[in-house]
């Protein structure tokens, strides 16, 4: 008799070969999608959102592309997830991790077709990944001791990271910006202290790093435009109508005159509050919430600069930068820490006014002002810069550095090949396949640059046969070059994360032999 249906309507089940095919196809499709963005000559993608306005994003950042895709294939979802994690954890290599995982699966597909059990492939991949990691960690350069050299390492890494992005034209400039900004952090990975302000207009070259803090606000009318030796009180308090917070309180009066009295009392209360704030001996007051006209006028009378509605991040950073604390009550002025800075002035960036705090106490924070032709350019520039900043701040903590330009992949591939030759049994096929997947990355870089990848990779392989070779792909001249001379470096931590999470994801997808999809939840049509 027919097999009973055990799943609900619309739920589907795919088994064995079919399931495996479905996940391979999904994963490889994703890889092919982002593959063309890899490397210095990678192309960008336009993403159009389905939301209102159909906003357009132009990017070649793997994580950004994948995040915006609507994917139904479960295996593809795994790849998107690893890219997202890579972004959160080290910030760069989001494309490489997906491409490597995809290539591993592409190789695995061939092995499965040759009747090798997925479990055997997995154990081979594991051995290969371990071996590759060891190979890398043996070849790292660590310039922790030598500050001068380390800084040049950082510059190289920044340049390498930026060279694949829209900023590549001005990479020297931006690499310098990024390195300066990260060096100011002195080892902390708190990227919040680096503020990025985007102002359309001007060219990318006009972007600059500012040592102070720039708040994207205007100074109130009739208040001083320039304050030297500012004492700043950073606050988070209601300066509109300071309500009575006790639950259920309401005003109930029986005559107009009473209303006027209470209004007077309210005003008096506000005046008192302003007086208390001024009594702190400040000449600048920054509030997170709105400041109504009445208190603003009071501040102006007292010659205090009042800035309203600075957003939450702005407040936190400002407090961090000036060394003050965020205050909400003002009864004991003697113990509230007040922030200081040398000079507050209104400056013009392009045609917008901003408030500039310079000569701040804490040297850690800084602001990068990005200028560019359009919003799309600025957004992409911000993402690129963010990648560079992440990589640099991670490198400051883990100072090990590798060469770039496909060099690490070739080094790993060579070691893995050696291992394959030594390993008996079916696993060696899997290990060999792993090395092929590694070589695929320089191949793709060369392909994207329009070079003859087959020839270049063969040359590279030959060059790497010698011990201690620094050969990689020089995309600019289109030949094999010495990466150390060209100054192309990458962070060890990024490469290691790429290797490990790609292997983990490939393993996960390989282990699957069945996909059970539940019926999509019925939604009411809200159109």
């Amino acid at each position, binding site marked *: 008799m027919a097999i009973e249906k055990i799943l609900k309507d619309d739920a589907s089940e795919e088994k064995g070969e079919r*399931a495996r095919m479905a996940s391979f196809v999904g994963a490889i499709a994703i890889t092919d999608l982002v593959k063309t963005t890899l490397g210095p000559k990678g192309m960008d993608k336009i993403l159009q959102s389905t939301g209102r306005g159909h906003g357009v994003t132009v990017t070649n950042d793997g994580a950004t592309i994948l995040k915006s895709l609507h994917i139904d294939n479960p295996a593809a979802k795994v790849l998107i997830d690893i890219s997202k994690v890579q972004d*959160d954890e080290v910030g760069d290599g989001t494309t490489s991790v997906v491409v490597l995982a995809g290539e591993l699966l592409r190789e695995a597909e061939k092995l499965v077709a040759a009747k090798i059990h997925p479990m055997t492939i997995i154990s081979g991949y594991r051995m290969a990944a371990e071996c590759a990691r060891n190979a890398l960690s043996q070849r790292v350069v660590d310039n922790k001791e030598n500050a001068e050299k380390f800084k040049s390492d950082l510059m190289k890494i920044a340049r390498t990271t930026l060279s694949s992005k829209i900023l590549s034209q001005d990479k020297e400039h931006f690499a310098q910006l990024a390195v300066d900004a990260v060096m100011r952090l002195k080892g902390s990975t*708190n990227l919040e202290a680096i503020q990025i302000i985007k102002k359309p207009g001007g060219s990318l070259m006009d972007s600059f790093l500012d040592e102070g803090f720039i708040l994207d606000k205007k100074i109130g009318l009739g208040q001083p435009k320039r304050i030297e030796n500012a004492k700043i009180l950073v606050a988070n308090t209601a300066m509109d109508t300071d309500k009575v917070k*006790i639950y259920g309180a309401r005003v109930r009066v029986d005559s107009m005159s009473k209303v006027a009295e209470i209004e007077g009392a309210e005003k008096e209360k506000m005046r008192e509050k302003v007086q208390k704030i001024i009594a702190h001996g400040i000449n600048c007051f920054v509030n997170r919430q709105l400041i109504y006209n009445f208190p603003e006028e009071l501040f102006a009378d007292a010659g205090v600069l009042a800035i309203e509605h600075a957003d939450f991040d702005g407040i936190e950073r400002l407090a*961090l930068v000036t060394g003050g604390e*965020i205050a909400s009550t003002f009864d004991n002025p003697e113990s509230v820490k007040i922030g200081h800075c040398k000079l507050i002035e209104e400056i013009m960036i392009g045609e917008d006014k901003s408030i500039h705090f310079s000569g701040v106490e804490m040297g850690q924070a800084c602001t990068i002002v990005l200028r560019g032709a359009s919003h799309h350019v600025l957004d992409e520039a911000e993402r690129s810069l963010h990648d560079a900043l992440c990589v640099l701040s991670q490198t400051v903590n883990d100072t090990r550095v590798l060469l770039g330009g496909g060099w690490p992949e070739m080094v790993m591939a060579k070691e893995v090949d050696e291992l394959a030759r030594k390993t008996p049994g079916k696993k060696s096929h899997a290990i060999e396949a792993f090395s092929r997947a590694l070589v695929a990355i320089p191949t793709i870089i060369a392909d994207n640059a329009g070079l003859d990848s087959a020839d270049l990779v063969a040359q590279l392989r030959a060059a790497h046969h010698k011990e201690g070779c620094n050969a990689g792909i020089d995309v600019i001249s289109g030949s094999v070059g010495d990466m150390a001379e060209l100054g192309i470096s990458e962070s060890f931590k990024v490469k290691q994360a790429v290797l490990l999470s790609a292997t983990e994801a490939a393993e996960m997808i390989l282990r699957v032999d069945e996909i059970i999809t539940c019926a999509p939840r019925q939604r009411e049509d809200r159109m």
Partner: protein
Amino acid sequence: MALAFDEYGRPFIILKEQDQKTRLRGIEAQKANISAGKAVARILRTSLGPKGMDKILQSPDGDVTITNDGATILEQMDVDNQIAKLMVELSRSQDYEIGDGTTGVVVMAGALLDQAERLLERGIHPIRIAEGYEMASRIAVEHLEHISKKFDFGATNIEPLVQTCMTTLSSKIVNRCKCHLAEISVKAVLSVADLDRKDVNLDMIKVEGKVGGKLEDTELIYGITVDKDMSHPQMPKQIEDAKIAILTCPFEPPKPKTKHKVDIDTVEKFQTLRLQEQKYFDDMVQKCKDAGATLVICQWGFDDEANHLLMHRNLPAVRWVGGVELELIAIATGGRIVPRFQELTPEKLGRAGLVREKSFGTTKDKMLYIEHCANSRAVTIFIRGGNKMMIEETKRSIHDALCVARNLIRNNSIVYGGGSAEISCSIAVEAAADKYPGVEQYAIRAFADALDSVPMALAENSGLQPIETLSEVKSQQIKENNPHYGIDCNDVGTNDMRQQDVFETLIGKQQQILLATQVVKMILKIDDVISPSDY
């Protein structure tokens, strides 16, 4: 649809809306049920053992789960058939009771159903089959007791426990670092275990995960982690020798529960109310301070003013901490949960040696670690991994390992794994079958065959020849009278499970057999299925 007629030949309605229901009866019903049960077992069969495969499950909302944990697969499978739901229940009850072996129990039940179908075809009454199974299961459970071994462990000698946990973990995706994880699990269980009473409260072990990093970075924290940060960005990030006030009342103006109104009709009232409000905030903070607290953990939110006052008085605070976490913190630090500020006294404060905030990666993720607590009995396992699915699967695997370790502490008997216990039981049941007169004898023999199907599935999944391997192992067991021979799944070279150190818990195995038999008996007893037809 069968119709009944009364003495005048009029149709007699027995069921409401009879003609709209489909009905299966007799042997037909039993066969339909059996095939549904088998279909579920078939799905899980490939997930059994160290070389078992995983399943991708896509939920109605499109979320992806990748797992090979039987209970999880079945729970998320959106099963519609009633009998299939019974199998899901079966796996779940194994999960609740034992925590491990959720796949094995379903495979076992499937095999029993398969055998029952053949007997039914021969015309044996289902109740007789059920009774035969019952007898056989009793024999098998007794035999398990007989071949089980007790082993010793203590707070210092945790090696045997680790070995058993490793057997459990080896079938999961985390088997790459099973050694590390097994050790963590055992240490966690031992630190919360009450060895005298032989009891373990697994609620005291919190399993937390955060994506990023490597699986090897997974660590055991003797304390609690909370996925929160300090309420004010400028509060200290590290507190030593913290005295913790655990509050369930908000730092907000009072909200009497009865409906009320405060009318303001004069200026004086307005002002007194304002002063009251300020004093109220001041009092709240002062009360915490008076009690000697150096850290406030609160279940609710803070008003801006209160937040600043706390910061001002140098009293770090954490807000919006969930109820479960709050309880764990209270247990770990030995504090009391205080519902009102008035009741805050020094002796109700919890104590912790070190509280620190730790940030991760390039995003703003922060977590609060509460370590060196007064009562070190609450621990946290903190999992790191490459992606979200990996973390979830690791959590499930750790849960299994924790359950196994707990079971061993409750009852330190073990049997050898790798299918050896099943094979040995099968031999014993087969031998016992001949002693039973009557039709049950056939059912008992069928039970023995069904027991063989677990090692068979193991061999199949490991890429071995199932029939050849099984018969070889079986003959070896009988010849040498040694119940330790099993299936060599990892291709180590020996099939003596004692040498491979593959153990499972005795109660886990017994429970598997008992539960599977019970469900199969239930399914066999059904002879009529009435269900509303589709239209």
